[in-house]
């Protein structure tokens, strides 16, 4: 073998690839995840541009257009008081996506610090927090969310809080488990050996290393939160009429299923498409960020 047959190693290649760049490269290879990401982006765009892309006012009623089947004037038909279903589905994306993001934001904001505390501090703090988490997880998700939403009063923002609080224990448990695994790693040991305070070790050394599983769980939790918001609105505990929400649209559509099936089809399909996209994205992220798939 001669030197000429060996490829030269440039200094740049010798460096390890940035883990996030590597994850993105892996994610891009997964068709399902990319379809999910594209549909999620589309929903976000539609929600942001709702005032410009919705053809009609979502709450404007028209007695001359009650329960009209899909047509050129109303692509997805109209509802029981003549409101345009397409405009309501577009505006409903705002309610659903913000419910997904805000409630998972609450769950992350409360759950991650508590999980970090339980996992890092251990002993009695861990014992107490873990028992509370066990107790909360013993009550089925939707039943706890219904009880909380009923206590807070029916509104979209209260439904978000109820879903966020209900989703918190999952993040506490996940963060705790990941922290327990991370805190015995050599880099944490090294950070301790050079005299870093505990809070700094937890925030600067442990937290950044447990982000990937949290990110995966967050994307899947958004899917769950969108379904939960729709369920609460369907039961009358979320977005209040006449404001549009996919769940409340399904609630009123149920009564007119024989006369106007389009009223039920499209909001349900929107929930399905949004949830499916977040699930696809979450599955793709899990594969892309999981070291076992490298």
């Amino acid at each position, binding site marked *: 073998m001669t030197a000429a047959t060996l490829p030269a190693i440039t200094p740049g290649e010798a460096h390890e690839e940035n883990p996030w760049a590597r994850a993105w490269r892996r994610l891009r290879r997964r068709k399902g995840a990319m379809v999910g990401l594209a549909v999620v982006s589309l929903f976000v765009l539609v929600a942001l541009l709702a005032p410009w892309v919705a053809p009609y006012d979502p709450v404007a009623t028209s007695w001359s257009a009650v329960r009209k089947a899909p047509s050129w004037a109303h692509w997805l038909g109209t509802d029981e008081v003549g409101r345009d279903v397409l405009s309501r589905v577009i505006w409903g994306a705002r309610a659903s996506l913000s419910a997904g993001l805000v409630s998972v934001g609450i769950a992350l904001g409360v759950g991650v610090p508590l999980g970090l505390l339980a996992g890092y501090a251990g002993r009695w703090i861990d014992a107490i927090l873990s028992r509370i988490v066990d107790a909360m997880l013993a009550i089925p998700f939707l039943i706890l969310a219904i009880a909380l939403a009923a206590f807070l009063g029916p509104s979209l923002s209260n439904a978000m809080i109820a879903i966020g609080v209900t989703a918190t224990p999952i993040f506490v448990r996940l963060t705790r488990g990941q922290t327990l695994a991370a805190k015995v790693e050599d880099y944490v040991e090294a950070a301790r050996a050079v005299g870093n305070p505990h809070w700094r070790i937890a925030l600067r050394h442990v937290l950044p290393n447990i982000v990937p599983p949290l990110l995966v769980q967050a994307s899947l939790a958004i899917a769950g939160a969108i379904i939960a918001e729709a369920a609460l609105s369907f039961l009358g505990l979320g977005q209040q009429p006449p404001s549009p929400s996919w769940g409340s649209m399904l609630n009123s559509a*149920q009564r007119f299923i024989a006369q106007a099936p389009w009223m039920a089809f499209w909001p349900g399909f929107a929930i399905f498409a949004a949830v499916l996209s977040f699930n696809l994205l979450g599955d793709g992220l899990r594969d892309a960020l999981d070291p076992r798939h490298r």
Partner: protein
Amino acid sequence: MLAFLTQRLLQVIPTLVLVSMLIFGLQQLLPGDPALIMAGEERDPKVLEEIRQQYRLNEPIPVQYVYWMKGVLSGNLGESMRLKSSVASLVAEKLPVTLQLAGMAILVALGIGIPAGIISAVKKDTAWDYGANLFALWGISTPNFWLGILLIFLFSVTLGWLPASGYVSLAENWRSSLATTIMPAFVLGNAIAAILMRHTRSAMMQAMAADYVRTARAKGLYERRVVLKHALRNAMTPVITLGALEFGTLLSGAVLTEQIFTIPGFGKLIVDSVFNRDYAVVQGVVLVTATTYIMLNLLADIAYVLVNPRLRA
């Protein structure tokens, strides 16, 4: 094994106590004065005071909790303010309805989820595998209240084959009972079938790569026998134990499914009592649900250790 059982049982007690505190605390947060709700049209302060005395509503919350727990431990879950009957009897009346629905949903889930998982694992990376994975994604992503409405439209409104709502008990008329519960059971079982399919697929793939499966093949056994007798038997352990944890999904689903198909079960009882501020019923029903869930978790853990010899030591 005994040490594990004792430790696991001891862990359950504080969880149950905390759950009861959580449920009792939640109820205290519900809006509305329970005395006013119980009194109905009556606004006489004397009557209201009597009600408060009778139900100890004037006592501090911790004292009310102790009285409530005393009752719960002796089988008294309180009394429904609206329906004027004991919560225990309401639970006993509604539970069989939801259990029938849940039982049928589990049959649907097992009937679809496990074969789909096996096929997906055995025919990995083929059209069958992609089809089964698509089914799982569909099952997990479809809101059951939407699926319920679509099925009503297809089978009740368009084809006229099945009743859109209502419930007939098995004892009354089994044919009508099946007709009223088949759609809700499918709606409820669909999501769990998807989860079971994913568990079965991953457990079967692990089992199919194991040495004992290679040995079974090396012995010259038919592939069918290798899959069903050797791999499946070992793969079913985690599937069944993980499946038991889907009880929460089943109950959450029952809340919506019973609402859509107007089935007078546990789920509808919870929603109706929340809307009517019927504190005692919400407390009782959620407590029964959570306790059952904790016990199922415990049984699943014990079953897992019992059937897995490596964990028994």
